[in-house]
Structure formats: structure tokens, C-alpha cells
């Protein structure tokens, strides 16, 4: 059941920040609602303390996508459909488009928002792996100040982020990456539409004369939260791309995933799939 609620729709960011400032544990930001509303409906404990919802829909800066010299700024309440239709995002951050195009359905993508996806920090938040490989930064505001943090640090553990009750994510900042990077995103779910991801992987790579100059690898769903594999990345930088390297790095990735998840009943299924997927992704990217 949905409880008796107070729903507020401030028109200015500062008014929104005033409303959440008391940090009373009963006030939550509503940025879309495709998690919170069914969450209420099934009596999810995660939302049971909420009595007041503050909607972001009327606050202009939370809805714009704009280009700056070396970066693109995405308002935290930009919907997935808006991302997919944005020329800027298609040009500079194609993996993000690919990942969010596979989220839910048209109906969900028309409502669900980018920050809503990662503030919930469900392991299966599909926008996270691409945002991680693009080194996304999150701008967070409270009534008195603003801070910026890397998404990688912002996400703490499943369903938990650095965000305090008095704070709101205002924007996501993505630095434009050098055009020579190529990359790909892969999602495995149980059905094509509206499927919760089981495995997601995002990889971008920059090479010169068959040598890896830079590589960034991130997973979602299969790990407890979306995460980067920096050790493996560092290991690969400077190496020559050979079939053996693709095999050995896929094996390492599988092992790294096992290290974070521990052995589970599903490991025998998932680990080979991750290894194979990563191998295929690398192979495609390297052939580019």
C-alpha cells in the first residue's frame, strides 16, 4: 500500500534543498518514481519510512543536458529517453546510450531518471558501468554547499551511497573522452524487455600500434554494486594485444569477480559467461 503522503513540487533548487534540509528520514526526493512507487505497492522496507516526497520535475537545471568545453553536464533528473535522444550523449558517450536503451521498456525509460537509477544503487542499475568507465563525477548539493565526488566513490554498497538525507544529486559531469577510445557494453537479462540484468559489462579502450594505451572496465549486476577493475586495467596498460592476452585477461576478470562475490550457487554459470563476454567485447573492440 502507498502511505498517506505529502507531495511537494518546488520550482527552484534552493527550495528543494530547504525542504530536505531537516533530514528527518521521512522525506525523499522523487525523480521519476519507477522504483519508489512499485516499492510502496509491494510494501518494500526500503521505502516504508517515507511520508513526504519532493519532486524534481519543475527544477530546470535538473533536466538539461549541456555541453561545456571539455565536458557534458547531465541534469540528475534527465530521463533515459532524453539521454537516448540526445545528440551530445550519442556523440560523446555511446556506451551510456547503449546501456540505457536496454533498460526496462519505453514506458519506463520515459519516466526513469539517471540519478534515480544510481542513487538507489541497486546492483543491476544499468547506467552505472558506462558511467564508471567514463569517470563520471556527481555534483551534490545541500542547503549550504555543493560538493563533487567521483561516482565510483559515491556508490558505497548495495542500496547505499554517500548521499545524506539533506543532500540532492544535482548534476552528473562527464569529461569528454579522446575520440580514439573505442568501447562496448553488454547486458545479459532473462528477456529482452523489462528484464533485470544478470550481468553487465562496459569496456572502453585506447590503443596505438596494437598496444593498449588505456583501458577501463566496469561491471554491474554480477558484482554487489557496479565497480571498476582498476588492478586488471593497470595490468593491461602497455601490453600488446594478442589472442593470448585476451584469454588471460578474461580469466583474470572472472577470478576478480569471484573474489568480490565469493563462491555462490550461480558462480559456475556466471563466471564462464563473464569470461566469454569480456573476451568477445575485447575482441570486437580490438578489431575496430
Amino acid at each position: 500500500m502507498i502511505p498517506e503522503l505529502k507531495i511537494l513540487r518546488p520550482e527552484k533548487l534552493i527550495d528543494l534543498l530547504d525542504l530536505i534540509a531537516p533530514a528527518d528520514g521521512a522525506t525523499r526526493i522523487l525523480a521519476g518514481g519507477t522504483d519508489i512507487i512499485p516499492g510502496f505497492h509491494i510494501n518494500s522496507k526500503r521505502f516504508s519510512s517515507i511520508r513526504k516526497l519532493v519532486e524534481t520535475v519543475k527544477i530546470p537545471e535538473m533536466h538539461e543536458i549541456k555541453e561545456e568545453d571539455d565536458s557534458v553536464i547531465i541534469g540528475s533528473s534527465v530521463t533515459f529517453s532524453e539521454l537516448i535522444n540526445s545528440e551530445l550523449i550519442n556523440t560523446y558517450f555511446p556506451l551510456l546510450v547503449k546501456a540505457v536503451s536496454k533498460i526496462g521498456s519505453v514506458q519506463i525509460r520515459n519516466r526513469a531518471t539517471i540519478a534515480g537509477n544510481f542513487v538507489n544503487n541497486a546492483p543491476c542499475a544499468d547506467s552505472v558501468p558506462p558511467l564508471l568507465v567514463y569517470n563520471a563525477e556527481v555534483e551534490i548539493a545541500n542547503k549550504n554547499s555543493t560538493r563533487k565526488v567521483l561516482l565510483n566513490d559515491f556508490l558505497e554498497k548495495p542500496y547505499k551511497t554517500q548521499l545524506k538525507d539533506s543532500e540532492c544529486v544535482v548534476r552528473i559531469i562527464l569529461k569528454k573522452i579522446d575520440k580514439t577510445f573505442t568501447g562496448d557494453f553488454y547486458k545479459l537479462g532473462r528477456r529482452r524487455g523489462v528484464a533485470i540484468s544478470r550481468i553487465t559489462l562496459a569496456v572502453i579502450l585506447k590503443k596505438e600500434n596494437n598496444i593498449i594505451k588505456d583501458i577501463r572496465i566496469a561491471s554491474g549486476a554480477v558484482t554487489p554494486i557496479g565497480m571498476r577493475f582498476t588492478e586488471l586495467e593497470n595490468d593491461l596498460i602497455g601490453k600488446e594485444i594478442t589472442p593470448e592476452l585476451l584469454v588471460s585477461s578474461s580469466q583474470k576478470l572472472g577470478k576478480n569477480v569471484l573474489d568480490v562475490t565469493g563462491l555462490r550457487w550461480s558462480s559456475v554459470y556466471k563466471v564462464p559467461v563473464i569470461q566469454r563476454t569480456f573476451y568477445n567485447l575485447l575482441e570486437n573492440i580490438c578489431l575496430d
Partner: protein
Amino acid sequence: MKITFKLNGENVSIEVESYKRLIDMLREDFELTGTKEGCSIGECGACTVLMDGKAVNSCLVLAAQIDGAEILTIEGVNQGNNLSDLQRNFLTHGAVQCGFCTPGMILSSLALLNENPNPTVEEIEESIAGNLCRCTGYKQIIEAVKATAEMSNQKLRNQSA
């Protein structure tokens, strides 16, 4: 709380309980029962309506969130006393069996056709990927949408000829 919005082309105001979802308000307060509730969690699409021209699941929107918006339900799709071409094509192509998914299917495909008058089969499939049908096997639905696109393009050509 009081909200004002446009419902099937008409301006309306209503005092609505904060715990009501858009689907509850449509069905209970406006008695528009064409919008169906299947899963309540955004998976089946039976509750699809258009909000400012975009397909949304009315089980995932609170009534309070539509203040100022424009809502189209299946009751607003027909043209006067006549079915729209899309509705008629659903009938002639056998795209309606039990009918439970039909309102949602029609609204999802209407949103597509409004934005994209010449959709490919793949685009049609994507537009209804969030709508489940237990009866038809989807093929008839895709054909009905395709036929509607062809009809309206033909009409345009006739007009300009």
C-alpha cells in the same frame, strides 16, 4: 491534494488522495476502466497511457505527479463515434483476443506512430516490448501497427496528389 490537468482533451480539476496512483485515479475517480492493471510493477504495460504524448505506465506514476500534464487514455483514442484507424486495424488483423492488453498496446503504438510515421518492424517491436500479450503471439499486433502506418502514409499521398 488538488490537481488540474488535461484528460482526453478536456481540462479537469480534482481533489485526489496522495496515495493514489494515476491508474487508481483514472479507474476510480473518472471511471475510465479501459486502462487495465496487470502486474502493478511496470512489467506488463496493460496500464499504459500517454502523458504529454509519451507512453508511461500509469501504475508507476502518482496522481499528484500529473498536475499540469496532458493524459490520453484508450477512451480518448477514438475519433468521435468512430474507431481510429489503429483501433480498426487491431480488429481486422486479429490483434485482439481477450483484449486485456489491447488498450496498452494501442497507446504504446500510438505514441510510436505519432513520433515516427514510418516505423520499421524492429521499431514497432521495441515500442511494445514493455507490453505483454498472453493471447495473440504479437505478430498480428505488429501487422496492425504496420498497416496503420501504411494507411496514413497513403492518405497523405492522396491529399498531396
